[in-house]
């Protein structure tokens, strides 16, 4: 149960956890906080989660990916206050065949965005603060 973390997220530990001598390809994705959204300058983001459900959904996504493809999956999502450039989410998928690693990595990040109860509050340079998606915006921010 360490899919959510308030510590910085990096690919290194995820790579180490999925690599093995029989798996020759690792596809990864790192989503970081961008300095703009909808044409406005963003200063920082606060991520919050319904933590027990987020952990459960992330575990289900990993299990689904590992049952659909012959892959090993690692994923982490950071919560708390993030600065521009900070990594919010990291995914690493190791496979014997690179096609599977790419397909499964894409699946994981899409499902994370679609299913995991995480929200982000954007702090704009103009002083406004908005929950992403709350006012009919398209969900955006770090992973885009």
């Amino acid at each position, binding site marked *: 149960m360490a899919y959510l973390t308030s510590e910085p997220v990096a690919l290194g530990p995820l790579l180490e956890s999925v690599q093995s001598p029989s798996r020759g390809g690792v596809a990864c994705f790192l*989503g970081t906080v961008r300095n703009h959204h909808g044409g406005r300058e963003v200063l920082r983001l606060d*991520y*919050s*989660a*319904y933590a*027990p*459900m*987020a952990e*459960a959904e992330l575990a289900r996504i990993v299990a689904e990916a590992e049952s659909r493809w012959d892959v090993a999956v690692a994923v982490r*999502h950071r919560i708390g206050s993030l600065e521009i450039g900070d990594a*919010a*989410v990291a995914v690493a998928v190791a496979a014997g065949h690179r096609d599977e690693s790419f397909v499964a990595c894409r699946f994981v*990040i899409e499902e*994370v*965005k*679609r*299913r*995991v*109860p*995480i*929200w*982000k*509050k954007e702090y704009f340079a103009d002083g406004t603060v908005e*929950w*992403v*998606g*709350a006012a009919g915006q398209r*969900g*955006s*921010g*770090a*992973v885009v």
Partner: protein
Amino acid sequence: MRVLLFASYAETLGFDSVEMTLDSPATVGDALERLRGLPGGENLPPRPLCALNLSQATVNDPLSGGDELAVLPPLAGG
């Protein structure tokens, strides 16, 4: 049962957790109707995303005493 609110919904209603007692049999929809009657509750969308005991739920799902119902704003992870 306990109802949890998050992010913009918690701000709109001014709380993030409330103990709620509904006449049985009750559904997720009944709990949402009760929330809509509270100050700020009129801002909830017609069909908000809900989770019952950590799994996604629909308005017709039945509720019982020890349940945890979460009302979830549009997800924005990643």
